[in-house]
């Protein structure tokens, strides 16, 4: 009898509960809670390193990157206005989003290293995107480029810029970008990289592996600290040989401030490397922070939406 009474009580309460019941309970936890993480980085580049970001479909990115001369050391100081009178590398690029995950681009760079007068074709594809529910904890993006130099061939055969055939003018980069955004403040990327240069000087390497790291630390909605660093794996014999001839290789490190204002992303940075393209700054950096051989630089990105969705 108690059971029945309880049930009756329940029966009386049940419709009341149903009537008052929040309609929200009907939907509960639906599938929309899994979303790709957005804005891991604000731009397709950290400083020199690629970020996991690509352009969205129909977006055109006009990019200008500039690296000045040595800020201090023998070539810097007041006489060059702390490097501002010199430019070590300049890159102007047009990049375009074919889909939300695939972008392509072309650029012209002055070049700094063995080659100058560079033309670059690049592609970048987001294979996997980090999701908000962590079912995919990492973003995986691939990047590749091919660079050709249009400089005049040297007449001296031992030179890197002695081009006996057209293919000697080519260099390539292949890269995987692993990225993760931690909360809303910190984003990190790890970049296993392979560089191939068809023509190098004696004892230099045609193939070189490197691993890079990139990071972004957000101070506010518009301002962030950006850092990137590469560790190229050059063989010891090659290092020793070049050191014996007075050339030492250094690992490129960049530190910058990134400011976002609507469609612009602007970064002011300091780097020891003189070059902007992976094909050069990873294998050919011979300037060091310690001797004042670092420089002002800036990256400007202006994104345009071409056509609607």
């Amino acid at each position, binding site marked *: 009898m108690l059971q*029945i009474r309880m049930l009756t009580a329940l029966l009386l309460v049940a419709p009341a509960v*149903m*009537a008052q019941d929040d309609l929200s309970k009907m939907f509960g936890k639906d599938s929309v*809670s899994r979303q790709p993480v957005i804005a891991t980085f604000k731009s397709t580049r950290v400083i020199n390193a690629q970020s996991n970001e690509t352009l969205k479909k129909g977006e055109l990115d006009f990019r200008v990157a500039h690296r000045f001369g040595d800020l201090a050391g023998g070539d810097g100081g007041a006489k060059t206005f702390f490097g501002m009178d010199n430019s070590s590398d300049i890159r102007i690029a047009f990049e375009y989003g074919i889909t939300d995950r695939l972008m392509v681009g072309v650029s012209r760079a002055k070049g700094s290293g063995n080659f100058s007068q560079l033309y670059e074709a690049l592609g970048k594809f987001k294979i996997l995107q980090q999701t908000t529910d962590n079912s995919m904890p990492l973003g995986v993006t691939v990047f590749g480029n091919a660079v050709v130099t249009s400089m005049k061939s040297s007449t001296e055969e031992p030179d890197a810029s002695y081009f006996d055939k057209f293919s000697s003018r080519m260099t390539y980069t292949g890269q995987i970008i692993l990225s993760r955004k931690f909360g809303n403040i910190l984003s990190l990327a790890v970049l296993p990289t392979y560089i191939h240069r068809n023509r190098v000087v004696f004892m230099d390497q045609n193939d070189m592996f490197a691993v890079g790291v990139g990071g972004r630390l957000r101070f506010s909605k518009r301002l962030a600290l950006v850092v990137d660093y590469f560790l190229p794996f050059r063989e010891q014999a090659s290092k020793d040989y070049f050191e014996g001839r007075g050339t030492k290789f250094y690992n490129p490190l960049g530190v910058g401030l990134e400011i976002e204002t609507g469609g612009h992303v602007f970064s002011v940075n300091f780097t020891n490397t003189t070059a902007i393209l992976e094909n050069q700054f990873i294998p050919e950096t011979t300037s060091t922070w310690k001797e004042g051989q670092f420089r002002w630089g800036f990256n400007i990105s202006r994104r345009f939406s071409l056509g609607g969705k």
Partner: protein
Amino acid sequence: MKQLLLITTFLLTCLAGSGQEIYSCKGPKISFFSSAPMEDISAVSDRGVSAINIKTKAIYFKVHMNSFQFKKALMQEHFNENYVESEKFPFAEYKGKYAEDVDFSKNGTYPVNVEGTLNLHGVERSYKGKGTITVRDGKFNVNSKFNVTVADHKIKIPTLVVKNIAEVVEVTVNADYQPVTK
């Protein structure tokens, strides 16, 4: 024991009965529009959910902020990242009631007054507005427009881009409802 069975049966019938009072809509069309000196901004989502209880006159809407589609991809990123902060506040939720009696058994258009609470950007605000319920053959459509002042929901617009973004946004809701079948 027989009584128990009877009560249980009654209980089940009762639950089924209350189910027919509830109508739901998967994918109401929720859009907003604002006109600013620099550019007009509009976005639309059809990935929300909604339900109406015609007995209690309760109205419910829920939409994922990430699902709003803008004309410009960068605008969409800024909307989610900087303004509505979708990672912190993934949903907008509306709970309200309409005042008038609507005869859902008769085809026709019924103007209604709606009052309720919108939770947007983690801030609740009550709104009063007008809408229409159009009944057609046991199904119905709800259409409503109301204005949201972004500052009311603590959505900050930096002075740098204040010319690009309007402070009042017109929200339009259009949803088709069907009875919930269990």
